[in-house]
C-alpha cells in the first residue's frame, strides 16, 4: 500500500530523533573536550556563576587527554570496569548453560506440569526489583553471598525472562522437523544440539544482547547487595566522580557507553527480533 508522507509527522519525527540523539552526542563530544573548555562552558553548573551553561556542538580543541587519563592513570577505574565485564560475562555464561536447556525442555519435552511451571516463570518475570529485593537479600544472606559479585550474578542467572524469551523462539520451530529427525533415529540430546540450538540461534542471540544490556546497566542490585567499593561495577562508580573532574567523568562514562553501543549497532536486528518475540501472541 502506498501512502503519502505528511509534512507534519515528518517534522515531528525528525525533531524527536534530534532530541533523542542530543544526550548521546553530549556524552561523546564531552569525552573529547578539554577540561578547560568544559569548565568554561559549564561553569554555571558547578560553580554557580550567573550566566547560563553552554555546549560546543563540536569541541573547540578536540583532545584525547581525558580518555588517556582514565585509561592510564586511574587504577580504580580499571578495577570497576573489569568488575562490570566479569558480572556481565558470568551472567551470560550462566544463562547459556542453564536457561537454554530449560527453555528447550519447557518448549519441547513432554514434561507433566510444564504449563504450571511456565505460568510461574511468567509471574516471576513480571515482578520488579522492588518486590524481589528483600527476598533475594534473605537468600543471599543465608548463603553467605552478600558483598560478593555472586550476589548480583546468581539472581540474574535465575531470572525467568531469558527462559520465557527462548521458550517463545523454541516453540516456533515446526514439530515436523523434530519428528523427521526422530524417525532417522536421532536421540533427544542430538536433536537439541543439532536442530534446536542452530535454529534457535536468533533467539539465543537476542537473549544474550538483552541480558548483556541489563547486566551492564545494573544499579539497584549492586547498590543493595555489594558494600565493598572494590567490587562495585562501573555503574555505581560513575555517579561518584565529582564535577571538578568533569573531563574524566565524561571519558569514564564513554568507556561504559561504547561496548553497549557497539553491541547495539552490531546486533540491532537480534534486539528488535527479541523484543518483538517477547511481545508476540502466544
Amino acid at each position, binding site marked *: *500500500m502506498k*501512502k503519502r508522507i505528511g509534512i507534519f*509527522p515528518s517534522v515531528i*519525527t525528525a525533531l*524527536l*530523533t534530534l532530541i*533523542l*540523539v542530543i*544526550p*548521546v552526542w*553530549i*556524552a561523546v563530544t*564531552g569525552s573529547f573536550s578539554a577540561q578547560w573548555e568544559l569548565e568554561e562552558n559549564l561553569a*554555571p*553548573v558547578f560553580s554557580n556563576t550567573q550566566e547560563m*551553561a553552554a*555546549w560546543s556542538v563540536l569541541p573547540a580543541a578536540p583532545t584525547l587527554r581525558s580518555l588517556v587519563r582514565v585509561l592510564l592513570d586511574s587504577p580504580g577505574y580499571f578495577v570497576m570496569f573489569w568488575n562490570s565485564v566479569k558480572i556481565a560475562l558470568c551472567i551470560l555464561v550462566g544463562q547459556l548453560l542453564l536457561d537454554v*536447556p*530449560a527453555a*528447550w*525442555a*519447557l518448549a519441547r*519435552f513432554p514434561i507433566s506440569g510444564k504449563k504450571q511451571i511456565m505460568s*510461574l516463570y511468567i*509471574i516471576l518475570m513480571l*515482578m*520488579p*526489583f522492588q*518486590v524481589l*529485593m*528483600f*527476598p533475594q537479600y*534473605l*537468600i543471599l544472606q543465608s548463603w553467605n553471598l552478600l558483598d560478593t559479585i555472586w550476589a548480583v550474578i546468581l539472581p540474574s542467572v*535465575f531470572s*525467568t525472562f531469558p*527462559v520465557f524469551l527462548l521458550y517463545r523462539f523454541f516453540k516456533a520451530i515446526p514439530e515436523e522437523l523434530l519428528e523427521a529427525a526422530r524417525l532417522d533415529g536421532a536421540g533427544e*540430546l542430538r536433536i537439541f544440539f543439532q536442530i534446536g540450538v542452530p535454529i534457535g540461534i536468533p533467539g539465543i542471540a537476542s537473549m544474550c544482547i538483552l541480558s548483556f*544490556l541489563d547486566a*551492564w*546497566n545494573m*544499579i*539497584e542490585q549492586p547498590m543493595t547487595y555489594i558494600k565493598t567499593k572494590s567490587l562495585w561495577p*562501573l*555503574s*555505581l562508580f*560513575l*555517579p561518584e566522580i565529582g564535577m571538578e573532574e568533569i573531563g574524566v567523568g565524561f571519558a569514564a*562514562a*564513554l568507556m561504559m*557507553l561504547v561496548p*553497549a553501543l557497539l553491541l*547495539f549497532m552490531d546486533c*540491532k536486528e537480534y*534486539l*528488535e527480533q527479541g*523484543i*518483538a518475540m517477547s*511481545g508476540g*501472541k502466544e
Partner: protein
Amino acid sequence: MKWNLHRKIKMQRLLYLAFLLPNLLGVLNFSLIPMVEVLIRSFQSAIGENWVGLQNYERVLHNPAFQIAFLNTLRFVSVCIPLLTVLSLGLAVFIQSIPHIGSFVRGIFLMPMAVPAASVVLVWKILFHDRGLINHALDCLGGNSIDWMGSGAAFWMMVMSYLWKNLGYTIVLWTAGLATIPDSIYEAAQVDGATSWQSFLYITMPNLRGTAFTITVMSLLNSFKVFREAWLVAGDYPHESMYLLQHLYNNWFRELDFDKIAAASVMTAAVIFLLIGVLRKAWDKEE
C-alpha cells in the same frame, strides 16, 4: 528387548530432568521460596519473630513517606503509560510508512535502550541544572527557566527520561504487531473507498489489541526502573515529587526496617498482580 525399552524411557526421563531441574531449582531457591518467606515475615515482627497479624501492613500504610512514594509511583505510571503508548503508536505507524530509511529511524529511537543510565548522568545533570542547557534554551526562546531539581518539575524530568529510554522499545513492539495485519485487508478497504484514517480506526486498532496489552504490561514494569535516573541525578533524598518506592525501600533497608519492607514488598506484588489481572480481563472481554 523389553528391558531395553524400559531403560531407554528411563534415560529419557533423566535427560528431561537434567535439562530443566538446574534452572527450576535455582528459580525456586532464588525467587519463589524467599518470596514465600517474606510473605510469612510480613506477619511477624522483625525482632523475636512473633506473630503480629496485620500490624506491619498498618504501619506501612500509615507511613507518610510510603504514601508519598506510592502516590508518586501511581502518578508516574498513569502519566507515562498513556503518553508512551499513544506517542509510540503514532511513531510506529508513521515510521513504517517511510520508504528506505524507516528501519534506520527506528534504530535511532531504539538506541537509548542501549545507553547505560550511569553513562549519561553527567549529561542529565548538565541538561537539567538550574542554569543548565535546557533552561538556557528556554531562555533563548523567551520562556521562563524551570527549577528542575528543586520543584515539582523534577517529576517531569523523570517522565522525559522514561520516554527517552522506552520509546524505541515500544515502537518495535507496535511495529511487530502492525506487521501481523495482512496488507490485503487494507487494500480491500481502499477499494471500498475507506480513507486512511478509517482504515486505521477500523482495521489497525482492533488488530492491535493483543499488542496493546503486552505494551501496557511492559511499560508498567519498565516504569519501575525509572528509579535509576532519579537516583543518579538526585541521589538518595531527591525532591519530594520524585521520591519513589525504591528510594523508600533503600532507606528502610539501611535502617534495617525489615518488617516494613516485607509488608511493603507483599503489597507491591499484590498491586502489580491485580493490575495485570484487571488489564487482562479488560482485554479478554473486548475480544
